[in-house]
């Protein structure tokens, strides 16, 4: 009988026994990322285990390494909140001197990357360490109880951006860390999503195989912080792609002129010129994404805030060189 090869290795590095919440999208992201890393190491060095992880303080750190237990089946070190990139730099330098083949994976959430860890990240990328930095973006400080970060999207409720008489919730647009990373002209930058796991795995493998630094920002759902149904994580993440909220792209060697924008799916019409995506006509309104999450519930009483969100999304896509049309829901 023919045995079908599984689409991704059955080896586990993020093992059962961690303490993440039910339905945690970031746990899925780490599981996939380490599997992808392992496959890349096997293909590149003939050793699926040829990697080590340096991780920032955050929800994925505290749930995976509660002494005397560990969810990690790979060599793993945690130092502090803001320095996963710096610690990874040290690990990489040490491996170089030890003559150890392999690659270092640094992991940080959006707070530990976009905010407090930005300086260390910039330093690591600029110095060209052979490290893949994976930013799992659940769009708030989830470890400390859902406070806004600079990666929290416009309009979202968090405990420090509560909607109120004088507030629509978070009032600043999301910081685009992937573009900041790409500005370092490093070999590889990508955005990914647990809503498209095969694409995410492909990108992690690519990142792991380049020589030099790579940065991957993966959008992952947080049912606790997003007030969303536990079982709908992947669906919500996919809707973020299909409504234009979350663009998927790759930038190699900081070449913004050759940014590879991916077709979003969900019936969107994509217009290309010379192979390059120049316009996307989305079919699904962003409301389809928003309505599944309690963090945006208040916006439905303030439709002008959702319109403002549409304008911001258009502006964000314009930076990527794409004209988008975003539908309003049918009345």
């Amino acid at each position, binding site marked *: 009988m023919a045995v079908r090869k599984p689409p991704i290795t059955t080896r586990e590095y993020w093992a059962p026994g961690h303490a993440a919440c039910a339905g945690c999208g970031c746990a899925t992201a780490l599981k996939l990322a380490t599997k992808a890393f392992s496959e890349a190491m096997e293909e590149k060095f003939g*050793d699926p*285990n*040829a*990697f*080590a992880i*340096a991780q920032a303080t955050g929800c994925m*750190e*505290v749930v995976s*390494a*509660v*002494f*005397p237990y*560990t969810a*990690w*089946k*790979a*060599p*793993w*070190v*945690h*130092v*502090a909140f*803001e*320095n996963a*990139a*710096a*610690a*990874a*730099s*040290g*690990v*990489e*330098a*040490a*491996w*170089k*001197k*030890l003559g*150890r083949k*392999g690659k270092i994976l640094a992991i940080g959430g959006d707070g530990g990357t976009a905010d407090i860890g930005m*300086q*260390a990240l*910039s*330093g690591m990328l*600029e*110095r060209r360490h052979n490290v893949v930095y994976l930013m799992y973006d659940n769009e708030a400080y989830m470890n400390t109880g859902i406070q806004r970060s600079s990666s929290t999207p416009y309009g979202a409720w968090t405990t420090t951006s509560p909607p109120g008489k004088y507030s629509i919730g978070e009032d600043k647009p999301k910081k685009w860390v992937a573009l900041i990373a790409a500005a370092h002209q490093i070999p590889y930058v990508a955005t990914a999503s647990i809503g498209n796991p095969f694409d995410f795995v492909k990108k992690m493998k690519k990142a792991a195989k380049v020589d030099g630094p790579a940065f991957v920002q993966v959008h992952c759902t947080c049912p606790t912080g997003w007030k969303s149904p536990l079982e709908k994580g992947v669906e919500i993440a996919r809707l973020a792609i299909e409504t234009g909220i979350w663009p998927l792209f790759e930038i190699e060697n900081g070449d913004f002129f050759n940014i590879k924008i991916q077709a979003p799916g969900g019936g969107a019409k994509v217009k290309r010129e010379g192979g390059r995506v120049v316009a996307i006509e989305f079919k699904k309104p962003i409301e389809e994404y928003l309505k599944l999450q309690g963090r945006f519930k208040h916006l439905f009483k303030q439709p002008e805030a959702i319109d403002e969100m549409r304008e911001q999304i258009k502006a964000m896509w314009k930076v990527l060189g794409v004209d988008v049309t975003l539908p309003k829901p049918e009345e």
Partner: protein
Amino acid sequence: MPMRKVMKANEAAAWAAKLAKPKVIAAFPITPSTLVPEKISEFVADGELDAEFIKVESEHSAISACVGASAAGVRTFTATASQGLALMHEILFIAAGMRLPIVIAVGNRSLSAPINIWNDWQDSISERDTGWLQFYAENNQEALDLILIAFKVAEDERVLLPAMVGFDAFILTHTVEPVEIPDQEVVDEFLGEYEPKYAYLDPARPITQGTLAFPAHYMEARYTVWEANENAKKVIDEVFAEFEKKFGRKYQKIEEYRTDDAEIVFVTMGSLAGTVKEYVDHLREQGIKAGAAKLTVYRPFPTEEVRELAKKAKVLALLEKNVTFSVGGALFQDFSRALVNEKEKPILVDFILGLGGRDVTFKDLDEALEISRKALAGEEFEEVNWIGLRKEIL
């Protein structure tokens, strides 16, 4: 044959690093210790030191990279001072808690505000509760020697703690003195290759480092740092003895000078110890029974040696380039603790002096002597005295 070269303490520290052969160095420039990474860069550039030198974007990342490298199992070194050490503060606790034998050379400098680049010990004294071992050098030779010693003690399996070696800003960092550079082979014999016993970020034996500990375990983890500090007391003595055997220079946790029949003993650290020894000679010529004592090791605090010293003097005059508010100096606090339950104890008089690079002169020491003599005579005295304070500009 050991080579003698005239050099600054910064260069001596760089030479010590070269001799210790760390595999990873991560550093960020800061006055007055900048010459340490500069010199190490030259050693690396010329192929005299086979190490990865990470030119980080901050001291915070310097120590973070050192933690990463040390967690990966290699010997690691950095240098800093003042604000740079303060920026490392958070990670210093982590390095000690993770039991990583990193060594830092510290060009002891004051802390802002006001900004001041000159010498006092407030930077490293402020880190006394991080769990790091602390050594203080009197001169450039000691800066070199103590760094080698620090590596050896830090890497001892009974210790496994990070260590810092302080040497005074400008007074030592930028002042040239003859320094004996030991032979590489002898240093290799003394230090050996650093080979951690446990698996460190090894894919063949993956372990998890730097975990979260609930209340059920945190206290025990902190206790192991305490225990390692206690163990370090004995290990330091052993390493000092071995160092003397191999290199001919004798070190003690507390070095005493003319204390045998002394009534007043001046206690200090760092380069000030040299001044004070000379001052004691000057007093002896006048028939004043004075002595001096220098703390080479400040953490672990040499409690036993302090108690021995206390038996010899009627007054211990503590000369400190640091302040612990409402208390005086840190030594005053430490000495008080060491002596509080002793049946017979000397009078402690504390002197805050030389902050921010203020010169400490014989005139200042005369002032300290006068107050100490009052205490000796049973007259009223202030426990904490700011020496050389320019009250007229307050």
